[in-house]
Protein backbone atom coordinates (compact mmCIF):
# COMPACT_ATOMS: atom_id res chain seq x y z
CA UNK A 1 0.00 0.00 0.00
CA UNK A 2 1.52 3.34 -0.96
CA UNK A 3 1.46 6.24 1.52
CA UNK A 4 -1.33 8.06 -0.31
CA UNK A 5 -3.76 5.19 -0.08
CA UNK A 6 -2.79 4.62 3.54
CA UNK A 7 -3.68 8.19 4.34
CA UNK A 8 -6.98 8.07 2.52
CA UNK A 9 -7.78 4.75 4.19
CA UNK A 10 -7.07 6.32 7.57
CA UNK A 11 -9.16 9.32 6.64
CA UNK A 12 -11.99 6.97 5.68
CA UNK A 13 -11.75 5.19 9.02
CA UNK A 14 -11.65 8.54 10.81
CA UNK A 15 -14.75 9.81 9.02
CA UNK A 16 -16.73 6.68 9.83
CA UNK A 17 -16.38 7.60 13.50
CA UNK A 18 -18.59 10.58 12.79
CA UNK A 19 -20.99 8.65 10.62
CA UNK A 20 -21.84 6.43 13.57
CA UNK A 21 -22.49 9.40 15.86
CA UNK A 22 -26.24 9.84 15.72
CA UNK A 23 -28.68 12.57 16.53
CA UNK A 24 -31.34 11.29 18.86
CA UNK A 25 -34.57 13.23 19.18
CA UNK A 26 -36.70 13.24 22.28
CA UNK A 27 -40.32 14.32 22.50
CA UNK A 28 -43.58 13.15 24.03
CA UNK A 29 -44.79 11.20 20.99
CA UNK A 30 -43.32 10.18 17.65
CA UNK A 31 -39.61 10.58 18.40
CA UNK A 32 -36.83 8.10 19.14
CA UNK A 33 -37.45 8.41 22.88
CA UNK A 34 -39.98 10.05 25.15
CA UNK A 35 -37.76 10.29 28.19
CA UNK A 36 -34.42 12.09 28.46
CA UNK A 37 -33.14 9.55 30.94
CA UNK A 38 -33.65 6.53 28.72
CA UNK A 39 -32.27 8.46 25.74
CA UNK A 40 -29.11 9.26 27.68
CA UNK A 41 -28.80 5.68 28.90
CA UNK A 42 -29.02 4.23 25.42
CA UNK A 43 -26.81 6.81 23.69
CA UNK A 44 -23.17 6.35 22.81
CA UNK A 45 -20.27 8.70 23.27
CA UNK A 46 -20.34 11.33 20.53
CA UNK A 47 -24.12 11.33 20.04
CA UNK A 48 -26.27 14.42 19.90
CA UNK A 49 -29.51 14.58 21.82
CA UNK A 50 -32.17 17.00 20.65
CA UNK A 51 -35.00 17.55 23.12
CA UNK A 52 -38.15 18.96 21.58
CA UNK A 53 -40.28 21.48 23.34
CA UNK A 54 -42.40 20.26 26.25
CA UNK A 55 -42.42 19.61 29.96
CA UNK A 56 -40.30 16.69 31.14
CA UNK A 57 -40.80 15.55 34.74
CA UNK A 58 -37.43 13.92 35.23
CA UNK A 59 -34.61 14.09 37.72
CA UNK A 60 -31.21 12.56 38.43
CA UNK A 61 -30.28 12.13 34.77
CA UNK A 62 -26.84 10.54 35.01
CA UNK A 63 -24.30 10.94 32.23
CA UNK A 64 -21.29 8.77 32.98
CA UNK A 65 -18.22 8.82 30.76
CA UNK A 66 -20.04 9.73 27.57
CA UNK A 67 -19.39 12.77 25.42
CA UNK A 68 -22.86 14.01 24.63
CA UNK A 69 -24.15 17.11 22.92
CA UNK A 70 -27.47 17.86 24.58
CA UNK A 71 -29.56 20.70 23.29
CA UNK A 72 -33.17 21.68 23.77
CA UNK A 73 -35.68 23.34 21.54
CA UNK A 74 -37.05 26.64 22.74
CA UNK A 75 -39.52 25.94 25.55
CA UNK A 76 -37.99 22.72 26.80
CA UNK A 77 -38.56 22.48 30.53
CA UNK A 78 -37.22 19.84 32.89
CA UNK A 79 -39.07 19.75 36.20
CA UNK A 80 -37.13 17.75 38.78
CA UNK A 81 -40.10 18.02 41.18
CA UNK A 82 -37.80 18.49 44.18
CA UNK A 83 -36.24 15.07 43.69
CA UNK A 84 -32.49 15.54 43.70
CA UNK A 85 -30.34 16.63 40.79
CA UNK A 86 -31.31 17.64 37.30
CA UNK A 87 -28.26 16.34 35.47
CA UNK A 88 -25.40 14.58 37.20
CA UNK A 89 -22.43 14.42 34.88
CA UNK A 90 -19.00 12.85 34.91
CA UNK A 91 -17.67 13.07 31.36
CA UNK A 92 -15.18 14.71 29.06
CA UNK A 93 -16.22 16.84 26.12
CA UNK A 94 -19.80 17.55 27.04
CA UNK A 95 -22.21 20.26 25.97
CA UNK A 96 -25.56 21.05 27.57
CA UNK A 97 -27.54 23.89 25.97
CA UNK A 98 -30.87 25.69 25.78
CA UNK A 99 -32.83 24.14 28.63
CA UNK A 100 -34.96 25.29 31.52
CA UNK A 101 -34.53 23.26 34.69
CA UNK A 102 -36.69 23.97 37.70
CA UNK A 103 -37.66 22.96 41.24
CA UNK A 104 -34.38 21.69 42.68
CA UNK A 105 -34.61 19.89 46.01
CA UNK A 106 -33.47 21.81 49.09
CA UNK A 107 -31.36 19.86 51.53
CA UNK A 108 -29.00 20.67 54.37
CA UNK A 109 -26.82 17.68 53.87
CA UNK A 110 -26.69 17.22 50.08
CA UNK A 111 -25.82 19.86 47.55
CA UNK A 112 -28.50 19.25 44.95
CA UNK A 113 -27.98 21.20 41.76
CA UNK A 114 -29.69 21.66 38.42
CA UNK A 115 -26.48 20.47 36.77
CA UNK A 116 -23.69 18.78 38.69
CA UNK A 117 -20.40 18.33 36.87
CA UNK A 118 -17.85 16.08 38.52
CA UNK A 119 -14.41 15.42 37.06
CA UNK A 120 -15.55 16.82 33.74
CA UNK A 121 -13.16 18.36 31.23
CA UNK A 122 -13.89 20.52 28.16
CA UNK A 123 -17.49 21.26 29.00
CA UNK A 124 -19.90 23.93 27.81
CA UNK A 125 -23.00 24.90 29.77
CA UNK A 126 -24.95 27.47 27.81
CA UNK A 127 -28.39 29.11 27.87
CA UNK A 128 -29.62 27.19 30.88
CA UNK A 129 -32.39 28.78 32.90
CA UNK A 130 -32.70 27.48 36.43
CA UNK A 131 -35.78 28.44 38.39
CA UNK A 132 -36.37 27.72 42.06
CA UNK A 133 -32.80 26.53 42.34
CA UNK A 134 -31.10 25.16 45.40
CA UNK A 135 -27.68 25.01 43.80
CA UNK A 136 -27.67 26.09 40.18
CA UNK A 137 -24.55 24.82 38.47
CA UNK A 138 -22.23 22.89 40.74
CA UNK A 139 -18.87 22.12 39.18
CA UNK A 140 -16.44 19.93 41.09
CA UNK A 141 -12.87 18.88 40.30
CA UNK A 142 -13.28 19.95 36.69
CA UNK A 143 -11.34 22.08 34.24
CA UNK A 144 -11.29 23.81 30.86
CA UNK A 145 -14.95 24.72 30.65
CA UNK A 146 -17.26 27.53 29.65
CA UNK A 147 -20.37 28.56 31.55
CA UNK A 148 -22.23 31.27 29.68
CA UNK A 149 -25.56 33.03 29.14
CA UNK A 150 -27.27 31.23 32.00
CA UNK A 151 -30.01 32.64 34.17
CA UNK A 152 -30.22 31.24 37.66
CA UNK A 153 -32.60 32.33 40.35
CA UNK A 154 -33.61 31.08 43.76
CA UNK A 155 -36.62 31.53 45.95
CA UNK A 156 -35.50 34.80 47.52
CA UNK A 157 -36.44 33.97 51.07
CA UNK A 158 -34.49 35.70 53.82
CA UNK A 159 -33.74 32.27 55.19
CA UNK A 160 -30.32 30.72 54.80
CA UNK A 161 -31.54 27.55 53.12
CA UNK A 162 -30.27 28.43 49.70
CA UNK A 163 -27.27 27.28 47.72
CA UNK A 164 -25.01 29.06 45.28
CA UNK A 165 -25.93 29.87 41.70
CA UNK A 166 -22.60 28.91 40.14
CA UNK A 167 -20.27 27.05 42.44
CA UNK A 168 -16.81 25.97 41.30
CA UNK A 169 -15.00 23.67 43.70
CA UNK A 170 -11.44 22.52 42.92
CA UNK A 171 -11.67 23.79 39.36
CA UNK A 172 -9.22 25.22 36.87
CA UNK A 173 -9.49 27.36 33.78
CA UNK A 174 -13.25 27.90 33.71
CA UNK A 175 -14.79 30.87 31.95
CA UNK A 176 -17.96 32.26 33.52
CA UNK A 177 -19.51 34.74 31.10
CA UNK A 178 -22.75 36.71 30.71
CA UNK A 179 -24.71 35.00 33.46
CA UNK A 180 -27.58 36.48 35.43
CA UNK A 181 -27.66 35.17 38.98
CA UNK A 182 -30.04 36.33 41.67
CA UNK A 183 -31.65 35.51 45.01
CA UNK A 184 -29.21 32.76 45.91
CA UNK A 185 -26.66 32.41 48.73
CA UNK A 186 -23.65 33.40 46.61
CA UNK A 187 -24.01 34.41 43.00
CA UNK A 188 -20.72 32.93 41.85
CA UNK A 189 -18.47 31.06 44.25
CA UNK A 190 -14.96 29.83 43.55
CA UNK A 191 -13.61 27.54 46.23
CA UNK A 192 -10.12 26.29 45.42
CA UNK A 193 -10.65 27.57 41.87
CA UNK A 194 -7.60 28.71 39.92
CA UNK A 195 -6.88 30.49 36.62
CA UNK A 196 -10.48 31.32 35.87
CA UNK A 197 -12.03 34.28 34.12
CA UNK A 198 -15.34 35.83 35.15
CA UNK A 199 -16.82 38.55 32.98
CA UNK A 200 -20.02 40.42 32.11
CA UNK A 201 -22.14 38.81 34.78
CA UNK A 202 -25.00 40.46 36.60
CA UNK A 203 -25.31 39.36 40.19
CA UNK A 204 -28.02 40.77 42.39
CA UNK A 205 -30.07 40.22 45.55
CA UNK A 206 -27.94 37.35 46.72
CA UNK A 207 -28.00 36.72 50.44
CA UNK A 208 -24.27 36.54 50.99
CA UNK A 209 -22.01 37.62 48.13
CA UNK A 210 -22.36 38.50 44.50
CA UNK A 211 -19.02 36.87 43.84
CA UNK A 212 -16.88 34.98 46.30
CA UNK A 213 -13.30 33.74 46.05
CA UNK A 214 -11.99 31.38 48.68
CA UNK A 215 -8.51 29.84 48.50
CA UNK A 216 -8.47 30.67 44.78
CA UNK A 217 -5.45 32.06 42.93
CA UNK A 218 -4.69 33.70 39.59
CA UNK A 219 -8.23 34.64 38.71
CA UNK A 220 -9.56 37.69 36.92
CA UNK A 221 -12.98 39.30 36.84
CA UNK A 222 -14.10 42.12 34.58
CA UNK A 223 -17.17 44.14 33.60
CA UNK A 224 -19.47 42.58 36.17
CA UNK A 225 -22.23 44.32 38.07
CA UNK A 226 -22.85 43.47 41.71
CA UNK A 227 -25.96 45.13 42.99
CA UNK A 228 -27.84 44.89 46.28
CA UNK A 229 -26.23 41.71 47.54
CA UNK A 230 -25.50 40.91 51.18
CA UNK A 231 -22.07 42.13 50.13
CA UNK A 232 -20.76 42.69 46.63
CA UNK A 233 -17.63 40.60 46.37
CA UNK A 234 -15.54 38.76 48.92
CA UNK A 235 -11.99 37.87 48.07
CA UNK A 236 -10.51 35.75 50.82
CA UNK A 237 -7.30 33.80 51.29
CA UNK A 238 -6.40 34.21 47.63
CA UNK A 239 -3.49 35.49 45.57
CA UNK A 240 -3.07 37.39 42.33
CA UNK A 241 -6.65 38.37 41.58
CA UNK A 242 -7.30 40.97 38.89
CA UNK A 243 -10.41 43.09 39.27
CA UNK A 244 -11.17 45.48 36.42
CA UNK A 245 -14.17 47.56 35.33
CA UNK A 246 -16.68 46.23 37.80
CA UNK A 247 -19.59 48.08 39.30
CA UNK A 248 -20.35 47.60 43.01
CA UNK A 249 -23.64 49.16 43.85
CA UNK A 250 -26.10 49.41 46.74
CA UNK A 251 -24.58 46.77 48.96
CA UNK A 252 -26.12 48.21 52.05
CA UNK A 253 -26.42 46.80 55.59
CA UNK A 254 -24.47 46.15 58.77
CA UNK A 255 -22.34 43.32 57.39
CA UNK A 256 -22.26 44.77 53.92
CA UNK A 257 -19.43 45.90 51.68
CA UNK A 258 -18.73 46.64 48.09
CA UNK A 259 -15.77 44.36 48.38
CA UNK A 260 -14.31 42.45 51.29
CA UNK A 261 -10.59 41.73 51.08
CA UNK A 262 -9.37 39.30 53.70
CA UNK A 263 -5.90 37.74 53.68
CA UNK A 264 -5.13 38.40 50.05
CA UNK A 265 -1.88 39.29 48.30
CA UNK A 266 -0.73 40.84 45.04
CA UNK A 267 -4.08 41.88 43.64
CA UNK A 268 -4.94 44.70 41.26
CA UNK A 269 -8.07 46.83 41.35
CA UNK A 270 -8.54 49.15 38.43
CA UNK A 271 -11.37 51.15 36.87
CA UNK A 272 -14.00 49.90 39.31
CA UNK A 273 -16.92 51.96 40.52
CA UNK A 274 -18.15 51.73 44.11
CA UNK A 275 -21.45 53.48 44.58
CA UNK A 276 -23.89 53.64 47.52
CA UNK A 277 -22.30 50.94 49.65
CA UNK A 278 -22.08 50.92 53.43
CA UNK A 279 -18.37 50.32 53.03
CA UNK A 280 -16.73 50.45 49.59
CA UNK A 281 -13.62 48.44 50.33
CA UNK A 282 -13.13 46.59 53.58
CA UNK A 283 -9.51 45.46 53.75
CA UNK A 284 -8.05 43.20 56.39
CA UNK A 285 -4.72 41.45 56.05
CA UNK A 286 -4.13 42.54 52.47
CA UNK A 287 -0.69 43.06 51.03
CA UNK A 288 0.84 44.51 47.87
CA UNK A 289 -2.41 45.60 46.29
CA UNK A 290 -2.70 48.45 43.83
CA UNK A 291 -5.87 50.53 43.69
CA UNK A 292 -5.76 52.78 40.64
CA UNK A 293 -8.41 54.69 38.74
CA UNK A 294 -11.35 53.63 40.85
CA UNK A 295 -14.29 55.81 41.74
CA UNK A 296 -15.78 55.77 45.24
CA UNK A 297 -19.06 57.62 45.24
CA UNK A 298 -21.64 58.21 48.00
CA UNK A 299 -20.48 55.40 50.24
CA UNK A 300 -20.66 55.36 54.03
CA UNK A 301 -16.97 54.59 54.14
CA UNK A 302 -15.03 54.54 50.89
CA UNK A 303 -12.21 52.44 52.31
CA UNK A 304 -11.93 50.82 55.70
CA UNK A 305 -8.50 49.45 56.49
CA UNK A 306 -8.10 47.07 59.41
CA UNK A 307 -4.89 45.58 60.68
CA UNK A 308 -2.06 43.81 58.90
CA UNK A 309 -2.20 45.69 55.61
CA UNK A 310 1.23 46.32 54.08
CA UNK A 311 2.59 47.86 50.87
CA UNK A 312 -0.68 48.83 49.27
CA UNK A 313 -0.79 51.68 46.78
CA UNK A 314 -3.81 53.92 46.29
CA UNK A 315 -3.36 56.31 43.38
CA UNK A 316 -5.51 58.19 40.86
CA UNK A 317 -8.79 57.29 42.54
CA UNK A 318 -11.81 59.54 42.79
CA UNK A 319 -13.32 59.92 46.26
CA UNK A 320 -16.63 61.64 45.75
CA UNK A 321 -18.98 62.65 48.56
CA UNK A 322 -18.43 59.71 50.88
CA UNK A 323 -19.41 60.17 54.53
CA UNK A 324 -15.89 59.00 55.36
CA UNK A 325 -13.19 58.63 52.76
CA UNK A 326 -10.97 56.48 54.87
CA UNK A 327 -10.99 54.72 58.17
CA UNK A 328 -7.72 53.40 59.43
CA UNK A 329 -6.46 51.40 62.36
CA UNK A 330 -2.86 51.19 63.37
CA UNK A 331 0.18 52.54 61.61
CA UNK A 332 0.55 53.44 57.98
CA UNK A 333 2.64 50.31 57.30
CA UNK A 334 4.08 51.60 54.03
CA UNK A 335 0.70 52.00 52.42
CA UNK A 336 0.79 54.89 50.01
CA UNK A 337 -1.89 57.43 49.09
CA UNK A 338 -0.93 59.63 46.18
CA UNK A 339 -2.49 61.57 43.34
CA UNK A 340 -6.09 60.91 44.29
CA UNK A 341 -8.98 63.26 43.77
CA UNK A 342 -10.85 64.02 47.00
CA UNK A 343 -14.13 65.89 46.78
CA UNK A 344 -13.68 67.00 50.40
CA UNK A 345 -10.35 68.63 49.62
CA UNK A 346 -10.42 72.36 50.32
CA UNK A 347 -6.89 73.28 49.31
CA UNK A 348 -5.79 75.48 46.44
CA UNK A 349 -3.54 75.26 43.42
CA UNK A 350 -1.60 78.49 42.93
CA UNK A 351 0.90 77.20 40.39
CA UNK A 352 -1.94 75.66 38.35
CA UNK A 353 -0.24 72.32 37.78
CA UNK A 354 -3.40 70.40 38.67
CA UNK A 355 -1.99 69.25 41.98
CA UNK A 356 -3.13 70.79 45.24
CA UNK A 357 -0.47 72.81 47.09
CA UNK A 358 -1.57 71.63 50.51
CA UNK A 359 -1.52 67.92 51.40
CA UNK A 360 -4.82 66.21 52.13
CA UNK A 361 -5.44 64.17 55.27
CA UNK A 362 -8.17 61.67 54.46
CA UNK A 363 -8.79 60.38 57.98
CA UNK A 364 -11.11 62.51 60.03
CA UNK A 365 -10.97 62.49 63.80
CA UNK A 366 -14.64 61.64 63.81
CA UNK A 367 -14.08 58.41 61.86
CA UNK A 368 -11.58 57.48 64.54
CA UNK A 369 -14.26 58.11 67.16
CA UNK A 370 -16.87 56.10 65.28
CA UNK A 371 -14.43 53.24 65.05
CA UNK A 372 -14.05 53.23 68.81
CA UNK A 373 -17.69 53.90 69.65
CA UNK A 374 -20.00 53.04 66.76
CA UNK A 375 -22.98 54.71 68.46
CA UNK A 376 -21.39 58.13 68.09
CA UNK A 377 -22.42 58.04 64.43
CA UNK A 378 -25.60 59.88 65.47
CA UNK A 379 -23.44 62.96 65.75
CA UNK A 380 -22.52 62.87 62.05
CA UNK A 381 -23.68 66.26 60.68
CA UNK A 382 -23.47 68.11 64.01
CA UNK A 383 -21.57 71.33 64.59
CA UNK A 384 -19.56 69.74 67.38
CA UNK A 385 -18.11 67.21 64.94
CA UNK A 386 -17.29 69.93 62.45
CA UNK A 387 -15.36 71.67 65.18
CA UNK A 388 -13.37 68.64 66.25
CA UNK A 389 -12.66 67.74 62.63
CA UNK A 390 -11.42 71.24 62.03
CA UNK A 391 -9.22 71.18 65.10
CA UNK A 392 -7.77 67.85 63.96
CA UNK A 393 -7.08 69.32 60.55
CA UNK A 394 -5.22 72.25 62.10
CA UNK A 395 -3.11 70.21 64.48
CA UNK A 396 -3.33 66.46 63.80
CA UNK A 397 -2.96 64.21 66.81
CA UNK A 398 -4.93 61.07 66.06
CA UNK A 399 -4.38 60.57 62.34
CA UNK A 400 -1.37 58.36 61.64
CA UNK A 401 1.52 60.70 61.06
CA UNK A 402 2.25 59.90 57.45
CA UNK A 403 -1.29 59.23 56.32
CA UNK A 404 -1.32 62.06 53.85
CA UNK A 405 -2.00 62.48 50.20
CA UNK A 406 0.87 64.83 49.37
CA UNK A 407 -0.25 65.40 45.81
CA UNK A 408 -4.05 65.54 45.79
CA UNK A 409 -5.48 66.16 42.35
CA UNK A 410 -7.60 69.24 41.65
CA UNK A 411 -9.69 67.52 38.99
CA UNK A 412 -11.45 64.22 38.71
CA UNK A 413 -9.58 61.38 37.10
CA UNK A 414 -11.16 60.12 33.93
CA UNK A 415 -10.35 56.85 32.28
Amino acid at each position, binding site marked *: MNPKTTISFLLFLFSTCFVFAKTITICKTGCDFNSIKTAVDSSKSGDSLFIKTGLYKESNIVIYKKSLYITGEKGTVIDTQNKGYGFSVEATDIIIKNLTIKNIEVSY*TKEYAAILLFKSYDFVIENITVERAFFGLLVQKSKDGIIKNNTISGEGK*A*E*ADSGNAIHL*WHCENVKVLNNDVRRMRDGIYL*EFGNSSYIANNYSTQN*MRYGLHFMFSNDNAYENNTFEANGAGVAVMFSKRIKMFNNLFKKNWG*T*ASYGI*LLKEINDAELQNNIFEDNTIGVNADGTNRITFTENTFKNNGYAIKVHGACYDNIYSKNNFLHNSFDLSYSGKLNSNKFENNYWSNYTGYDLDKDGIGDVPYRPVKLFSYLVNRTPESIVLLRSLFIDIINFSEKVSPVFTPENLIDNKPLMHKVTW
Partner: protein
Amino acid sequence: MKRLSLLIFLCSFFSCSKTPQTINYGTDMCHFCQMTIVTKTHAAQMVTTKGKQYKFDAIECMIRFLEDKQDIMASGNLFIANYNQPGTMIDAKTATYAVCEEITSPMGANLSGFKNTETAKKIINGRPAQYYDWEGIFNKIN
Protein backbone atom coordinates in the same frame (compact mmCIF):
# COMPACT_ATOMS: atom_id res chain seq x y z
CA MET B 1 -39.83 57.13 87.56
CA LYS B 2 -40.20 53.79 89.28
CA ARG B 3 -41.17 52.19 86.01
CA LEU B 4 -38.19 53.70 84.25
CA SER B 5 -35.77 52.38 86.83
CA LEU B 6 -37.42 48.98 86.57
CA LEU B 7 -37.00 49.13 82.82
CA ILE B 8 -33.36 50.05 83.15
CA PHE B 9 -32.87 47.28 85.65
CA LEU B 10 -34.52 44.76 83.35
CA CYS B 11 -32.51 45.94 80.38
CA SER B 12 -29.26 45.63 82.22
CA PHE B 13 -30.35 42.25 83.51
CA PHE B 14 -31.17 40.88 80.05
CA SER B 15 -28.14 42.38 78.40
CA CYS B 16 -25.96 40.37 80.74
CA SER B 17 -27.69 37.14 79.85
CA LYS B 18 -25.23 34.38 79.10
CA THR B 19 -27.54 32.44 76.84
CA PRO B 20 -26.77 32.74 73.14
CA GLN B 21 -28.66 35.32 71.14
CA THR B 22 -30.31 34.04 68.02
CA ILE B 23 -28.16 34.43 64.94
CA ASN B 24 -29.76 36.43 62.16
CA TYR B 25 -28.69 34.31 59.24
CA GLY B 26 -27.94 36.36 56.18
CA THR B 27 -27.29 39.61 58.06
CA ASP B 28 -25.00 38.86 61.01
CA MET B 29 -21.29 38.91 60.46
CA CYS B 30 -18.66 36.44 61.57
CA HIS B 31 -16.52 38.03 64.24
CA PHE B 32 -13.36 36.37 63.00
CA CYS B 33 -13.50 36.40 59.21
CA GLN B 34 -16.18 39.05 58.56
CA MET B 35 -18.20 36.74 56.35
CA THR B 36 -21.96 36.94 56.49
CA ILE B 37 -23.27 33.99 58.47
CA VAL B 38 -25.54 31.81 56.35
CA THR B 39 -25.07 28.14 57.09
CA LYS B 40 -27.34 26.91 59.83
CA THR B 41 -25.42 23.67 59.94
CA HIS B 42 -22.01 25.13 60.74
CA ALA B 43 -22.45 28.36 62.71
CA ALA B 44 -20.88 28.85 66.13
CA GLN B 45 -21.29 31.28 68.97
CA MET B 46 -19.57 32.39 72.13
CA VAL B 47 -20.93 34.29 75.11
CA THR B 48 -18.45 35.66 77.64
CA THR B 49 -19.09 35.91 81.37
CA LYS B 50 -19.96 39.57 80.85
CA GLY B 51 -22.58 38.59 78.29
CA LYS B 52 -20.74 39.75 75.21
CA GLN B 53 -21.84 37.85 72.15
CA TYR B 54 -19.49 36.66 69.46
CA LYS B 55 -20.92 34.98 66.39
CA PHE B 56 -19.04 32.89 63.85
CA ASP B 57 -19.93 31.47 60.46
CA ALA B 58 -18.02 28.26 61.03
CA ILE B 59 -16.75 26.20 63.95
CA GLU B 60 -13.19 26.55 62.63
CA CYS B 61 -13.53 30.35 62.82
CA MET B 62 -14.40 30.18 66.52
CA ILE B 63 -11.51 27.83 67.18
CA ARG B 64 -9.05 30.07 65.35
CA PHE B 65 -10.43 33.10 67.16
CA LEU B 66 -9.90 31.39 70.52
CA GLU B 67 -6.35 30.30 69.77
CA ASP B 68 -4.68 32.94 71.91
CA LYS B 69 -7.57 33.52 74.29
CA GLN B 70 -7.38 30.58 76.65
CA ASP B 71 -8.91 32.57 79.54
CA ILE B 72 -12.06 33.47 77.62
CA MET B 73 -12.32 29.91 76.41
CA ALA B 74 -12.25 28.54 79.94
CA SER B 75 -14.85 30.92 81.35
CA GLY B 76 -17.12 31.66 78.38
CA ASN B 77 -20.01 29.64 77.07
CA LEU B 78 -19.27 28.10 73.68
CA PHE B 79 -21.96 26.87 71.33
CA ILE B 80 -21.93 25.23 67.93
CA ALA B 81 -24.64 24.38 65.45
CA ASN B 82 -25.84 20.81 65.53
CA TYR B 83 -25.26 19.51 62.03
CA ASN B 84 -28.27 17.22 61.89
CA GLN B 85 -30.64 19.73 63.46
CA PRO B 86 -29.89 22.90 61.47
CA GLY B 87 -30.36 26.05 63.48
CA THR B 88 -30.12 24.53 66.95
CA MET B 89 -27.14 25.27 69.15
CA ILE B 90 -25.41 22.76 71.41
CA ASP B 91 -22.60 22.99 73.95
CA ALA B 92 -19.30 23.06 72.09
CA LYS B 93 -17.23 21.52 74.86
CA THR B 94 -19.23 18.29 75.04
CA ALA B 95 -19.95 17.93 71.33
CA THR B 96 -18.39 15.50 68.90
CA TYR B 97 -16.63 16.83 65.82
CA ALA B 98 -16.17 15.15 62.48
CA VAL B 99 -13.83 16.18 59.70
CA CYS B 100 -15.27 14.70 56.52
CA GLU B 101 -14.12 15.59 53.01
CA GLU B 102 -17.60 15.13 51.65
CA ILE B 103 -19.26 17.62 54.00
CA THR B 104 -17.78 21.02 53.29
CA SER B 105 -17.88 23.78 55.88
CA PRO B 106 -17.73 27.53 55.17
CA MET B 107 -14.04 28.06 55.89
CA GLY B 108 -12.56 25.02 54.27
CA ALA B 109 -11.92 22.77 57.27
CA ASN B 110 -14.70 20.34 56.35
CA LEU B 111 -15.64 20.34 60.00
CA SER B 112 -19.10 19.62 61.40
CA GLY B 113 -20.36 19.26 64.97
CA PHE B 114 -22.75 16.70 66.46
CA LYS B 115 -24.35 16.14 69.82
CA ASN B 116 -22.65 12.81 70.38
CA THR B 117 -20.47 10.28 68.61
CA GLU B 118 -23.29 7.86 67.80
CA THR B 119 -25.35 10.40 65.84
CA ALA B 120 -22.18 11.64 64.16
CA LYS B 121 -21.34 8.16 62.94
CA LYS B 122 -24.92 7.61 61.85
CA ILE B 123 -25.02 10.81 59.78
CA ILE B 124 -21.54 10.36 58.32
CA ASN B 125 -22.71 6.87 57.38
CA GLY B 126 -19.48 5.11 56.57
CA ARG B 127 -17.93 7.96 54.59
CA PRO B 128 -14.26 8.57 55.40
CA ALA B 129 -14.04 10.89 58.43
CA GLN B 130 -12.02 11.56 61.55
CA TYR B 131 -13.73 12.14 64.88
CA TYR B 132 -12.59 14.50 67.62
CA ASP B 133 -13.70 15.90 70.95
CA TRP B 134 -13.36 19.62 71.75
CA GLU B 135 -9.75 19.38 72.93
CA GLY B 136 -8.80 17.27 69.95
CA ILE B 137 -10.32 19.53 67.32
CA PHE B 138 -8.91 22.62 69.03
CA ASN B 139 -5.41 21.23 68.77
CA LYS B 140 -5.93 20.03 65.22
CA ILE B 141 -7.15 23.37 63.86
CA ASN B 142 -4.63 25.55 65.67
